[in-house]
């Protein structure tokens, strides 16, 4: 690291490396940061005759009326947004945990025990990335229809006598749908890490008399903490804004926070509401993100 610093300062002008990062940074400023300001302006702005938002760009004209109204829908007497928030706070951790448990098992198997077939497994694991999320959930829709394959198999196994309404707002369907959609993002980072674990560490554990289970719990698991955290962040954070899984596999009874935003954008007069909700979601998510960044930095410094 010190060598690199020396070379950088001696042979490259000071603006050299920043100029590489400049185009993307400028892009992000104009198309990522600035739109957030527009969101603020819309959330604290007004609406026109049709209910389209009229953003107010000067902070001194901002009115918090809509924002307070929305907050009231979460904790007031008639808090009809609260169920959606609670559902999201239950679905996302549940789905993330399932992703972790299943994903870790699969990643572990492929990383450590796949042997000659590792390439094949890898291709199969990567395939969801290019199969398209929509197609995968769409396929499940077909299977979960009242006369679909799942119900037919259940009937054939005599488990369910009448067709089960999987697509009628069942939380389990939505949670499993979330897992189905996001689990590839958990498996790959975990695989990447488990693949590179130093075999010596594991053998040391075995030499000291620990069985496979103990080695796993005492050696592998603690080492994978950072990878697990990364996987959880990559999976859980986007899940908070997910609305399409519920749209396709659930109903209004299982509406999530993302559905609140999507409905607000589509409805007349919903612009400021959408802005306020997006604001709330960002505030909710920035905290775990900062925690993740700090722990990554600490892990890097320790390494």
């Amino acid at each position, binding site marked *: 690291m010190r060598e690199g610093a020396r070379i950088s300062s001696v042979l490259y002008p000071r603006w050299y490396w920043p100029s590489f990062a400049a185009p993307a940074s400028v892009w992000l400023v104009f198309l990522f940061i600035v739109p957030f300001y527009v969101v603020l302006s819309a959330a604290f*702005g*007004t609406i*026109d*005759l*049709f*209910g*389209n938002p*009229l953003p*107010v*760009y*000067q902070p001194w*004209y901002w009115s918090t009326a809509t924002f307070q109204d929305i907050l009231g829908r979460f904790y007031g007497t008639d808090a*009809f*947004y609260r*169920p*959606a928030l609670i*559902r999201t706070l239950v679905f996302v951790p549940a789905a993330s945990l399932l992703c972790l448990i299943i994903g870790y098992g699969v990643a572990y198997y492929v990383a450590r025990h796949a042997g000659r077939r590792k390439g094949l497994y890898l291709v199969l694991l990567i395939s969801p990335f290019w199969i398209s999320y929509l197609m995968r959930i769409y396929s499940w829709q077909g299977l979960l*229809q*009242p006369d679909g394959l799942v119900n037919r198999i259940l009937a054939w196994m005599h488990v369910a006598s009448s067709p089960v*309404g999987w697509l*009628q*707002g069942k939380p389990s369907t939505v949670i499993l749908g979330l897992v189905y959609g996001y689990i590839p993002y958990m498996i790959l980072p975990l695989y990447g890490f488990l693949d590179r674990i130093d075999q010596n560490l594991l053998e040391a554990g075995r030499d000291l008399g620990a069985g496979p289970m103990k080695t796993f719990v005492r050696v592998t698991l603690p080492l994978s903490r950072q990878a697990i955290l990364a996987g959880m962040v990559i999976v859980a954070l986007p899940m908070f804004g997910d609305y399409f899984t519920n749209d396709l596999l659930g*109903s*209004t*009874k*299982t*509406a999530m926070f993302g*559905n*609140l935003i999507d*409905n*607000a954008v*589509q*409805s*007349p*007069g*919903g612009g400021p*509401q959408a802005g306020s909700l997006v604001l709330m979601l960002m505030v909710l998510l920035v905290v775990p993100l900062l925690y993740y960044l700090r722990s990554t930095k600490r892990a890097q410094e320790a390494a």
Partner: protein
Amino acid sequence: MHPGSRARRMSRRDFLRRSAGAAVALPGAAAILAACSKPGQSTRTSIEEQLLANPARPDHPVTLPLYQDPIAASTPIEKGATLQVYNWEDYLWPRLFREFEDKFSKYDVKVSLTTFNNIDEGVAKLSAGQVSADVFFPDPSELTKLVVSKLLQPLQHDLLPNLAANYWPEFQNPFYDKGWRYTVPYTIYTTGIAYRRDHVPDSKIQSLDNPYEILWDPEYKGRVTIYDDRRETLSMALMKNGIKDVNTGDPKLIDMAKNDILALIDATDAKLTINGIYSRMAEDVFWVGSSWSGDVCSAAFYYLPKDVSPEVLGFWYPPDGGGVIGNDLMVVPTSSKNPRLAHEFVNFMLDTKNSFANFTNWNGYQPPTTSIDPTALVPKVVPPSLKETVVVPSYFDTGSFILGVTPSVDALYSAAWDEIKAGG
């Protein structure tokens, strides 16, 4: 050179650069200055405020104000144009687009369809400038708002000869747009209850005191659908409670309607759809649902599997004609790039041959033309089990239109709908 003199003498390059910079910055500065004034100031005249505060009703007809003249009848037809039609999904027979293109092939015309899911979405996107359309298909509920916001242009009736003679007397001077300044009628329809007679016997519906309640029946859990349309679904709940004024501003009534819909969803896991009736009831997915008259006809005409008789579908509408009634309109927005061609298209759709073909071959919605005798539709066009779908002129006296309301009442309906969509 002396530093002072250098500072005073600007080189030509400097001057050019600075003036160019100013020229680029000026529009930006103007925009900023414009943005600096206090926003949301209303610039509406008192007439407009009047119109918005007193929306059109059958007993209170409205003449919409004119802001510009209609296009001259002598305007030439635009060449090489693509006509943008902005409509509900599956509402206009695609073959009619091809026939229109063929008819005007010497002008090298193309027709392109953009769709919206429900009227709120359609109006919102048009008013936000997200969609630019040549012909738009709204209903009267948002008409005043559209006109007052100068989003629609008045029609040039010299270009619409098909309108004059062919339409019902009730439409010669509609109460929501006296003189047909901005609109022409497209279809008429009622909102009733559609059901599959092989799962829900006729007798069951007839025996109920309040047939609307069949939608709340837990026996059909998972088999019920209602419309993903704010006003339509809340109106149905109001009707179920015997409230004929579906444009009521009474917060208690709106609240009651909202709670009823939440109870409906709870009891039956009802799905909010727009095409649930015509496509999925035909596929035996839904057995009962709130339905527009045209949707169930469309299911019978087009979507049923080949070996299933249309008699499997049934439709109920209050026998006294006191249910929800509506009609859809054709309008030309001000943002239209091809107004002359738009008029030609409207005229084309007003031709009774085309509107009848649209009705019987595609969308099942009756056009209010005098050439169609409602009593003769059954059984030649409409199967006997669906005879209630036929709309007769007397319904316009007994039925209730979904119409515009004041902004504050509109907000009440929106809040109620938000709660329904949020899962309660």
